[in-house]
């Protein structure tokens, strides 16, 4: 079986109409009574596990906006298998225990057909075992390597966003060739940062480069200047990735430290996700490089698919909200929600999904997917899904700050992002 993702025929006009129709809607309040059995004639219910509160809330807000727009679009196109889609959103507080409880709510209280949406790794890993036990298809949008590493289970898939390992290894050739070979890495001292450290250190060595210093910043840190002196003088590139509310402080203090004469900078846009590049104190970022999952600023060669997506989620050409240009989106990640929902729809249609009894066929239908070409369903670009590892692979972008905007200077191929399978989930029983 090959790709089952149908090419949609959405126009820009319908996308805009969808957005207008969906503003403010989307959150259908769950009834407290519960116990309602899945009605095969009623709407298909998708549980959206969202980080509305806690450290993930800046991402969660945008994930929710994208999810609302994507569901509205699916319903405009006639729903899934002729049934409308109802989204039930629940906040998990960016907490692994609450995440697991929310999955239970979806399975046993709301009787949803499938769950999607969580981002932060610890929440995903905390909740995935429950999803597996409850036999609930769990579509995560986390970019963590936990799915492809084999740590999770048959019911957990990541078909909408690439994982950190493939992102990181595909950066090494460009960095070694164009930015510098002697690299100092600065990353948060927890699992996400360690993934960066381990994968990139190996990948750059394979390109003849070298990581000469690794600086792990404790995640509880709010001030960063004192870590920068550990950057060796001979450093050619500083590779930085930081997450959480302190990111702007981090980047700004890095600028103050170097005072405009330091080594070249290569960062993951996570360090500045939801932050305006034009914020005061960030002028020094001019000419520095960033990984982007999807370029925040509309590029001159932007595809019509991406333009339609931008319009549907209400984001302008600078990656900020149409209503408020200061409200910068999490553009490099949030497309994952859109594409995940498209894959769920395609999977349900391929499986002839009727109700919870067909959940296994849904998983199998998604596992059978491979090529997902650039389309309105996949506005970020071509993708290849690996059914054995439950992980999708796609092109990565490297952008450079020019005149205060991110301009794409390189796009990897999908082959650059591939690595050997570490698990075969299809061999596991349901």
């Amino acid at each position: 079986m090959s790709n089952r993702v149908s090419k949609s025929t959405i126009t820009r006009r319908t996308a805009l109409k969808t957005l207008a129709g969906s503003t403010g809607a989307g959150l259908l309040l769950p009834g407290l009574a519960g116990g309602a059995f899945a009605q095969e004639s009623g709407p298909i219910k998708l549980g959206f596990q969202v980080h509305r509160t806690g450290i993930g809330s800046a991402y969660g807000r945008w994930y929710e906006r994208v999810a609302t727009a994507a569901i509205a679009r699916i319903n405009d196109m006639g729903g899934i298998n002729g049934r409308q889609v109802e989204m039930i959103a629940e906040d998990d507080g960016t907490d692994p225990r609450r995440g697991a409880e929310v999955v239970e709510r979806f399975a046993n209280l709301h009787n949803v057909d499938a769950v999607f949406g969580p981002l932060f790794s610890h929440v995903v890993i905390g909740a995935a075992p429950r999803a597996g036990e409850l036999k609930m298809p769990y579509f995560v949008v986390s970019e963590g390597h936990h799915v492809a590493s084999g740590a999770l289970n048959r019911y957990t898939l990541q078909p909408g966003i690439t994982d950190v390992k493939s992102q990181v290894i595909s950066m090494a050739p460009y960095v070694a060739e164009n930015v510098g070979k002697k690299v100092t890495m600065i990353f948060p001292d927890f699992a996400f940062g360690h993934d960066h450290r381990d994968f990139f250190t190996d990948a750059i060595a394979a390109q003849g480069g070298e990581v000469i210093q690794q600086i792990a910043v404790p995640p509880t840190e709010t001030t960063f200047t004192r870590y920068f002196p550990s950057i060796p003088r001979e450093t050619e590139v500083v590779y930085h990735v930081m997450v959480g509310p302190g990111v702007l402080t981090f980047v700004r203090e890095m600028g103050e430290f170097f005072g405009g004469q330091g080594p070249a900078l290569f960062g993951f846009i996570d360090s500045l996700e939801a932050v305006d590049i034009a914020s005061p104190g960030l002028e020094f970022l001019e000419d520095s490089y960033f990984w982007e999952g999807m370029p925040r600023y509309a590029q001159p060669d932007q595809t019509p698919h991406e333009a339609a997506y931008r319009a549907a989620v209400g984001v302008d050409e600078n990656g900020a909200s149409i209503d408020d240009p200061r409200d910068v989106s999490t553009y490099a990640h949030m497309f994952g929600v859109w594409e995940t929902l498209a894959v769920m729809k395609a999977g349900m249609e391929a499986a002839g999904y009727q109700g919870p009894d067909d959940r296994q066929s849904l998983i199998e239908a998604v596992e059978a997917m491979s090529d997902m070409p650039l389309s309105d369903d996949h506005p970020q670009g071509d993708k290849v899904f690996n059914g054995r590892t439950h992980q999708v692979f796609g092109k990565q972008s490297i952008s450079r700050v020019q005149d205060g905007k991110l301009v794409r200077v390189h796009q990897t191929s999908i082959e650059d992002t591939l690595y050997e399978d570490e698990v075969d989930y299809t061999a596991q029983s349901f």
Partner: protein
Amino acid sequence: MDFGPHLLLATLEGAVTAAILALTAMGLSIVFGVMRVVNVAHGEFYMLGAVIAWFIATSLGAHPAIGFVAALLLAPLAVGAIAAVSDRLILSRIDYDPERTIVATIGLLYIIQQATLMTFGPDARPVEPPFNHRIALPWVEWGDGGLALYWPWGLSITSYKLFIIGAAAVVLTGIWLVMTRTRFGLIMRATQQDREMAMVFGVPVDRTFAYVFGLGAGLAAIGAVLVVPVQQAHYLMGHDPLLLSFIVVIIGGLGSLPGTVIAAILIGMTDGIISVFFSPTLAKIIATLAVAMVLVFRPQGLMGKASR
């Protein structure tokens, strides 16, 4: 970076941390000392200070310096008023019972945090500093011609960060003057030493407590307004200042104002300086355990008197 410049940089950065910490902890210390209650919501008053500062600075839309000065004046007042009202409405009605106060202030913490999330949103928002210049600092080394000055790579501080240290010192001096030279200070000290006796002598303990609670929260807010041009306002930012302030107050010795300042400097600086020698997370572990050991072997804190 060489060892010397690195140490100097860590010390300077530590001094900035210590300055903010001293203000925040001083607020907690006064509340702790006078009212004998643990205010778990103290960090949220700090956060409110930062958020209100952002609100004032952005809605004025004037030159950053004007917005900042307005925030520095108004945000602490607003936060102090909120705190005083919650003291009247809640804490006074539970008679400042230590355990119930913990529950009540945890409740307050949830309410303030959630209310901020719903109005201010989940993003970290910057406030522009009134002025900000990078000041490169020199270091000495033995060159061919004897001692020579040179400017090591990265050894610098900003003028605004120096201002934070100065401003904190001014505010703390002000507090010290209030405590020692004014009638209000006398009332506070009397209440701190013996609440019943103070009441007998006609001190309006109720009203004093409301002022003290407001003052404590206001001090946290001043710390936050000063820090917000360097960091950003965020609805979860109150967590660390709360923990650190607690530690500072206890290490300094309950109710001892000089002790609080000394402990703030000690804790603000050690973190940075230990990180020169060890990997950062390990440094934090060592610093945390070291502080715990100070208490284990000197339970009354540095400047506290041994319990009777």
